[in-house]
């Protein structure tokens, strides 16, 4: 009873503040939220919603550090960037009872490595990064990272790798069974040597072309995000997305509360709104990744709910987040990446 009373009081309070403030400013990825959702929030809470977009975590961080703090209320960084932003003191904290729908978050996504206990962020969408193989070219077992790093002859020389240091080095570490952000010399030397050897099998590095090279047939296998692979399949490529047994990269985009948010109460309302199952489902139907909210299933499109890319087999291991290393360790990994690409 006490609980209900406080939440009613809180709701009344936040609603009152919402009409008083009347504004919400969002900094989000491009094409990552349908306009109808923004309109719906604006109508429900009677606020004016504005949104700017970015195309990489680094671009967003740079813009915020270069003087845009205090201008936005909510941003949508990826997992490792949440940790970096928190480390740089760019995030505000909230208590869980400030967001009534916090209880809708799937419990496995609450104690996450990049924001233990969720003090700054709530889940937005999540997905995985591994690779896809053209099944017309290769029909053997693909549930191993050896497809990328020591491929069968059918695929050698026809592999595209994401031009993204963090994800390539994370998958390579999983393949060798060594931890990320390792400072062990033998492990790093092994990682360096393995990558240099694997490079002979690769045709190209490319991130924004990752889907196109699979569809066109330029690459017979390629590192890719699960949603991107689903789109390649929808465009007619006979590709299968792998959940390798050594592990794969998981990533999660999160809505965070920015420090010095001009409309903190509306920001919390918006985060609460995103955790409402029908809204979370609308987001997933638009972005084609996966929601971390319980109870979205009845609202999901069948094609997205049942896609093989979004439903790992029961035998698949858990995804691994890209680690955030300290500066000294990161410089070792930078050197390995430069070695690989020189």
């Amino acid at each position, binding site marked *: 009873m006490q609980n209900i009373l406080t939440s009613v009081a809180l709701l009344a309070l936040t609603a009152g503040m919402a009409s008083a403030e009347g504004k919400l400013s969002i900094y989000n990825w491009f094409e990552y939220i349908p306009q109808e959702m923004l309109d719906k929030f604006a109508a429900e809470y009677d606020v004016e919603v504005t949104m700017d977009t970015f195309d990489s975590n680094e671009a967003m961080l*740079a813009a915020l550090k270069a003087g845009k703090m205090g201008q936005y209320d909510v941003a949508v960084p990826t997992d490792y960037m949440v940790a970096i932003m928190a480390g740089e003191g760019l995030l505000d904290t909230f208590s869980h009872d400030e967001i009534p729908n916090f209880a809708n978050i799937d419990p496995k996504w609450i104690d996450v490595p990049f924001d233990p206990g969720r003090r700054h962020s709530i889940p937005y969408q999540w997905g995985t990064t591994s690779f896809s193989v053209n099944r017309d070219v290769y029909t053997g077992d693909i549930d191993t990272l050896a497809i990328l790093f020591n491929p069968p002859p059918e695929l050698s020389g026809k592999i595209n790798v994401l031009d993204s240091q963090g994800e390539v080095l994370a998958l390579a570490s999983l393949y060798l069974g060594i931890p990320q952000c390792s400072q062990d010399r033998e492990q*790093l030397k092994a990682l360096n040597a393995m990558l240099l050897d694997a490079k002979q099998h690769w*045709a190209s*590095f*490319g991130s924004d072309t990752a889907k196109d090279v699979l569809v066109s047939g330029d690459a017979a296998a390629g590192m890719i995000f699960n949603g991107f692979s689903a789109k390649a399949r929808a465009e007619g490529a006979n590709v299968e997305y792998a959940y390798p047994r050594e592990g794969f990269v998981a990533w999660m985009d999160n809505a965070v509360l920015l420090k010095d948010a001009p409309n903190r109460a509306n920001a919390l309302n918006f985060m609460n709104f995103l955790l409402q199952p029908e809204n979370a489902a609308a987001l997933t139907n638009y972005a084609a990744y996966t929601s971390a909210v319980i109870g979205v299933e009845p609202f999901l499109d069948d094609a997205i709910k049942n896609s093989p890319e979004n439903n790992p087999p029961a035998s698949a291991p858990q995804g691994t987040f890209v680690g955030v290393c300290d500066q000294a360790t990161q410089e070792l990994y930078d050197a390995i990446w430069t070695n690989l690409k*020189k």
Partner: protein
Amino acid sequence: MAGRAASGAAGTGYRGLTGPLLLPAWAMIGIFLLLPVLLMTVYSFLTREFRGGVDWTFSLAAYDRFLLSRGLFGDEPPVPEWTYITIFWRSIWQAGLATLICLIVGFPTAWFIATRPLHSRALWLFMITVPYWVNLLIRTVSLRFLLRDQGPLNDLLIGTGLLDSPLRIINTNLAVQLGLFYSYLPFMVLPIYAAVERYNFALSEAAADLYASRWTTLREIVLPVVRPGIIAGCILVFVPSLGAFLAPDLLGGAKTYMIGSLIEEQFKGSQGNWPFGAAVSVILMTLVLIVLMVYTRARGRAEVR
């Protein structure tokens, strides 16, 4: 001499106004040329800030990284670092080859256009420049579509029975060459055209009257006269090719760094290193400057002779 006398005379007429009149030109040079170069040079001597940006403390670390290698873990005795010199060498070689191909194709093209009747020359020049109204990125991506294994070029070669399996061009150095050649060809054609157009063809006739062979005429008469155009064309192709990153990225598969992509990588991404990127740019610019100075010297000496 005549030129200097003329400008001297003009100078007397506007005495007192020279300063204010030159101001816009100096402001342009200062704001758009000197200031950025100065800023870049200063940045190359600063300390790297983790995850992008600079810390305003003097440091030679960027140049040290370029020249000396201390092993993967940075604690071995320093030895000369070949990584970046190799990248420079590769880029210079690529740019040089692209310039040569542009010259071989561009010179006859320019000659052809310059020897057309006056009224049709404009049309030919127009046709050379039309493709360049399209953005470089789009042209490079289009070239990628043409060259790919299942693209029109390979369809044609296989369809006509010339080849059994697709010619692998995409993601090779050959594709990068083609990309650079295609991107910068007009920069070669236009200056040579300008030089050839001013060439007095009576000189060729005179040479022929004096029993010079066609080859001798080309070597002894034509080339010396149009040489400034050729050199201008070569510089205009070589310098941007040296810093190109679109062609290596999109056509070469981004598998090996070129100078341009190495610099680009230092400024995007959280793994970037701004002072190092600035230092590489300064070194590249110094190299280009040396080449241009050697050329100016050589030309000055040739003119004196």
